[in-house]
């Protein structure tokens, strides 16, 4: 301690600078940081040249430009634009901000932000399905998705703070379900790609999954926001559930029933387009599960037991929303990238024993692709998520050359049998049963709501809520 005595305390404490990372640890950490940097490059937006003149114009002139463009139909034409397309800037910087201008409440802004995030996701999927998704564009899109997801969650928090528990819950549930389902879909698309595109797509899928699992952006915000992160309240669903009123439960019931109704209708209109019946069975199963969860919820409501009712409704909403996404995405991918499930099946080289077993077993009534077991398992939020990939790619990802052939055979047989009947009889007995079950459930909900004097009674199950519109467009 000789040195200590001679030095001032300042000098003494400077000795601590000798504590360092061991050289090899430092090098190891450096190289993994380097890998992270390479994989997460800031990218100059491919639409920057289009964007910048618009940005400098200010909002008023932006609206003027938009009106002009609308008149010319450009705005509409831009709707299908993808990153790299000349009109993409119009889509992102004119059409979408305009939607924001008209969002006056936190709930509508949350919807709007979720909607924008979903549009970026759709772009990711289209590019991935075409096999043209490169890392720069993917990073750009995922960071946009992240941005809008976080904005949506911030708005949902406001909704929650306003005491609109059911509204906050449904917004968060749908957002979560959107992220998870699309993450699964992208995962499947990744397998159908190869080389760099596969890695890029898989990494995008992973980012969406992570975003879903963040649930709140709390961790990120406390870890990253300088200088002083504001104390955040826990968002949405978790917190909302602590105080469940009959009124909020009824509202959620109405929303969930509407969502199921919309999903059912979407499914019906595209029923014939499903050439792969496993995909179709998968969606049907989700709709049935949703109806079952709603039924259980109504049981609980009858017993004035609102907590489990609320939980079941959230579950039902997740299933219905997921079904909706699968139907929509299937259709969208076919339109925008020309990718059909059959194409993916034919071209695919990756094998999956699950599918082969299923094909061989001849037992299509119990689609083994959906694992949540409606009879035994209690409903749980993430139950679906791990298995949902189902179907879109259903099997996009899942056939060996030989099983691909089996499947074609299988499909043909189905088509033959299908063509024997008219529209109504084309459905299998189990499918018709499912259809009836869902309709019965919806009727029951209507009765329950009118008995309970729901505040929104006058607008009982309107055919389209604003929420649906955003989704189905």
């Amino acid at each position: 301690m000789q040195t200590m005595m001679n030095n001032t305390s300042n000098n003494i404490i400077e000795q601590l600078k000798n504590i360092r990372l061991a050289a090899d640890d430092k090098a190891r950490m450096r190289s993994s940081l380097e890998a992270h940097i390479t994989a997460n490059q800031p990218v100059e937006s491919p639409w920057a040249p289009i964007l910048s003149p618009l940005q400098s114009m200010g909002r008023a002139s932006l609206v003027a430009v938009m009106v002009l463009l609308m008149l010319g139909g450009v705005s509409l034409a831009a709707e299908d634009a993808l990153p790299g397309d000349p009109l993409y800037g119009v889509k992102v910087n004119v059409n979408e901000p305009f939607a924001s201008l008209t969002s006056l409440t936190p709930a509508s802004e949350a919807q709007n932000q979720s909607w924008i995030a979903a549009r970026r996701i759709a772009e990711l999927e289209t590019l991935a399905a075409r096999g043209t998704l490169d890392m720069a564009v993917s990073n750009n899109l995922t960071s946009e998705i992240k941005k809008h997801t976080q904005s949506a969650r911030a708005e949902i928090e406001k909704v929650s703070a306003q005491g609109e528990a059911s509204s906050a819950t449904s917004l968060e549930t749908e957002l979560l379900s959107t992220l998870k389902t699309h993450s699964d879909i992208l995962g499947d698309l990744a397998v159908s790609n190869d080389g760099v595109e596969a890695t890029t797509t898989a990494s995008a899928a992973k980012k969406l999954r992570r975003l879903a699992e963040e649930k709140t952006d709390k961790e990120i915000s406390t870890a990253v926001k300088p200088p002083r992160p504001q104390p955040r309240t826990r968002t949405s669903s978790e917190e909302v559930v602590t105080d469940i009123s009959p009124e909020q439960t009824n509202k959620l019931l109405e929303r969930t029933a509407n969502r199921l109704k919309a999903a059912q209708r979407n499914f019906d209109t595209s029923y014939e387009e499903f050439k792969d019946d496993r995909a179709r069975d998968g969606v049907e199963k989700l709709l049935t599960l949703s109806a079952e969860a709603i039924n259980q919820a109504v049981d609980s409501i009858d017993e004035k037991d609102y907590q489990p009712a609320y939980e079941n409704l959230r579950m039902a909403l997740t299933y219905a929303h997921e079904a909706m996404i699968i139907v929509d995405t299937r259709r969208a991918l076919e339109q925008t990238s020309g990718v059909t499930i059959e194409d993916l099946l034919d071209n695919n080289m990756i094998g999956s024993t699950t599918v082969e077993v299923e094909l061989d077993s001849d037992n299509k009534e119990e689609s083994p692709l959906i694992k949540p077991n409606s009879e035994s398992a209690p409903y749980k939020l993430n139950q679906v998520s791990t298995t949902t990939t189902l179907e879109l790619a259903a099997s996009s990802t899942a056939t060996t050359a030989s099983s691909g052939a089996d499947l074609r055979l299988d499909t043909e047989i189905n088509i033959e049998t299908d063509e024997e009947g008219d529209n109504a009889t084309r459905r299998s007995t189990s499918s018709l049963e499912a259809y009836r079950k869902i309709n019965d459930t919806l009727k029951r909900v209507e009765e329950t709501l009118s008995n309970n004097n729901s505040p929104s009674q006058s607008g009982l199950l309107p055919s389209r809520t604003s929420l649906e519109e955003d989704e189905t467009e």
Partner: protein
Amino acid sequence: MSDHGKKEFLAVYDEHSDAVYRRCLFKTSDQETAQDLTQEAFTRTWDYLADGKEINNLKAFVFTVANNLIKDYYKKKRAISMGQMSNFDPQQIADGLENIQAKAEVEGVIRALDKLKEADRDVLTLSLVEGFGPREISEITEERENTVSVRLHRARARLRKVLHADNDE
């Protein structure tokens, strides 16, 4: 546009990673955890930059991120009694000091620090070892600048006392 900013950021890592590691080590007393947290702090800082956001004081920012990660770490761990957000264990830290030449001296300082309160230890290390001013420290520890200044002043006095006592022994 490949590797945009990579070289610059790695230079920041080279320069400041030891300091961030020390901070994490003093708060967790566990080498591996400190390494993980350090790495994560740099990774997240990069992500922040890659998102197109700006950072004025990069070193202070990484420290802020690290500090928040440390808090999150304890929140998740829950092994330590409620409210405790730090584990300063001089023995454990000293045990990891194998490669340091001036080991005896460093150990002495660590033991002296152990006799101080955590808040004092924080301001002293951030200021005397890492060279931050009161304003930067206030950003990192999320306290008022005034509070930090006052604490720094008193902590120095206490440290002197502790060192004197050590020398008298």
